[in-house]
């Protein structure tokens, strides 16, 4: 009884045999809709901040330097690769690539910052109308965004909560009236 199960256990390995993949030297193909590192196509991105609102790990931070410039910082070190930003992006600017070999010795390598030129229209969030009309997602109307990028902190609500003296510092920024000024 004991011996028969021992022999079965040894023979259990004969059929599959040694199955070790020779990984670092030949790589196994990645399935096609795999959720690896997100890729920002900054031509398509309109800076609507939809991804920032819907990132569970709150890794995408948005800051408006002035009406024309919006800086978006993606803090890759905390990203959990859930693919939510790729779903929610109205312009499909974010796609989940199949890159998973992201090992690095310096955390800053995973960061990505994008500086967008915003048309001088009133960014009251109307430009963010999602195709899939899920009410919950559209309820996040964001006004003039001011996340605290230094502390990687994501400020939850709109204009009424960001700190006034930062607003004052950018107040005296002179809008460009005409070329060559």
């Amino acid at each position: 009884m004991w011996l028969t199960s021992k022999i079965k256990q040894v023979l259990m390995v004969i059929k599959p045999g040694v199955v070790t993949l020779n990984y670092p030297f030949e790589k196994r193909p990645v399935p096609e809709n795999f959720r690896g590192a997100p890729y920002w196509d900054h031509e398509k991105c309109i800076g609507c901040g939809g991804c920032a609102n819907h990132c569970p790990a709150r890794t995408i931070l948005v800051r408006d330097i002035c009406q024309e410039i919006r800086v978006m910082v993606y803090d890759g070190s905390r990203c959990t690769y859930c693919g939510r930003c790729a779903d929610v992006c109205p312009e499909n600017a974010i796609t989940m690539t199949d890159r998973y070999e992201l090992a690095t010795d310096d955390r800053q390598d995973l960061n990505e910052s994008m500086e967008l030129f915003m048309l001088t229209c009133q960014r009251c969030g109307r430009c963010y109308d999602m195709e899939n009309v899920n009410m919950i997602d559209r309820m996040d109307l964001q006004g003039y965004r001011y996340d605290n990028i230094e502390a990687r902190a994501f400020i939850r609500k709109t204009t009424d909560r960001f700190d006034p003296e930062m607003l004052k510092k950018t107040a005296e920024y002179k809008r460009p009236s005409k070329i060559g000024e």
Partner: protein
Amino acid sequence: MNSLEKVLKTLQDKFGASITGHASPLPTRLFINIKAEKVREISNEVVALGGRYLVGIGHDNIARDGNIGMIHTFGFDKDNFIVHLNAAVPGSNPVMPSITPDIPGAGWSEREYQDLLGMKFEGHPKPKRLVVADDWPADIFPMRKEVPYNMVPPAAEDVAYQLDECPEGCSIIPVGPFHTALHEPEHFAVYVDGETIKGCDYRGFMTHRGIEKLCESQVSYNEVPFIAERICGICGSVHATAYSQAVEMAGGIPVPKRAEYIRSLLLEIERLHSHLLWLGVAGHLIGFDTVFMQSWRVREQIMWLSERITGNRKTYGMVIVGGVRRDITPEIGEDILKVCAKVEEEVKIIHKSITGDTALHKRTKGVGYLSKEEAVKWSLVGPVARARGIDIDVRRDHPYAAYSELQFNVPVVDTCDVWGTLVVRLLEIYESISLIRQIIAKMPKGEILTELSEEIPPLKHGISVVEAPRGESVHFVITGEENRPDRWRVRAPTYPNLQAIPAMLLNDQFADFPIIVGSIDPCFSCTDRVEVVNITSGRKRVMSKSEIEFISRGNM
């Protein structure tokens, strides 16, 4: 008059005065508002009527009506309905009678809210700190609404665990935070006399990450499933499904049939890979590495399969409020069936080679014995209970998702020991594979995500129960404004099973400690709490393994 009204009637005519109102939004839910003083007698009455204690939820309502609510929930398995006893105490002095003396299962919900909400429970046998760290200031209660979610008080220096008195004649073995047998940081102080275990004390909550507070203040409805999935690395989509079902029940959101079938498919795939994982870890814990390697080799097929379906090996990220994110196309269906057939035949080989192995029987039969009555007293759930002859399974008792339309039988064994849990889990693997085949055959057409036309109404209560691979997982949600849940409570299956560990460990060899703790397949990151059994509660400084190393390095 089904039993729900019967329970309501018996409670009303016995405690008419102290019941201030009742509601039944669904045929399977009954909310009863009671006065806080009478909570003990009423809950004893409900348990006498056949209720099983599920979970206790404390929520901070000070902003609205100035008091803190405490909800005790009881499940009636035979006739599939859940009773809530809503009690409320004024926020200024939140004192309430405790129900733990008669219902041991409630001990921790109450201790948890002593730490998190500052409530006091008179008559609680062991009102010690449970959730927050030892060096957490005593007057800050994190779950109160006015406390910000990211407030980190300064760390006091090396504060030791407050553990219990060691029974006389025993030495303490600190199974420290970084022990290879338990893959998670928690500290068992095992009281051993020679090789036999006399008692066990536990200091947990090292993986408490304040998820409930985070999801009440920082993220909106549709992000919480992605955080819920990361509560536990093995049964991720169980938590996401349970949360979504709770919100859908509270907000009255209809879920398309196809989405329910896809959710059940994901839950069954997760059960497959979780049971195979446990089989491997159990083999590893008793030193039988061949079973560990072979069962994890078989499990790898399922991980690759779920990677092809959902895009990630383990955190599937498919379930959101109102449905599912990705569809199951027909060719994915064949892929699933092919992989299931291969896995089933490989598991058969492993099963045949294990059942006859007397060496394995020596290490698992009669180990971690807990009789059926004690298992009922500790209200065990999942395979641990089914191995002790208790016939409970949430998929059959409280059907959710697509389980009401599927046929499956629940394997129950009555050997009451670790071998029983192994046999139950192996049989459940075959059950899951047959369930997956049924789901793929019967999956209806239709879209997979509902369009939410209007906002989710605030202040609605919702509870949902899901059969996780380890047992019954309970999620409770109170909906709130600003597109965010007002309160979200998670009770994982390891919560009651961990309570029975000290009872299972008594008079066993210390060599069996890993396999007994492993037999309930503990997921400490889900729960992180076990009741303390020992007699007196005294101050005793016990060092963890790392601390002993620190001191033993000569710098006393």
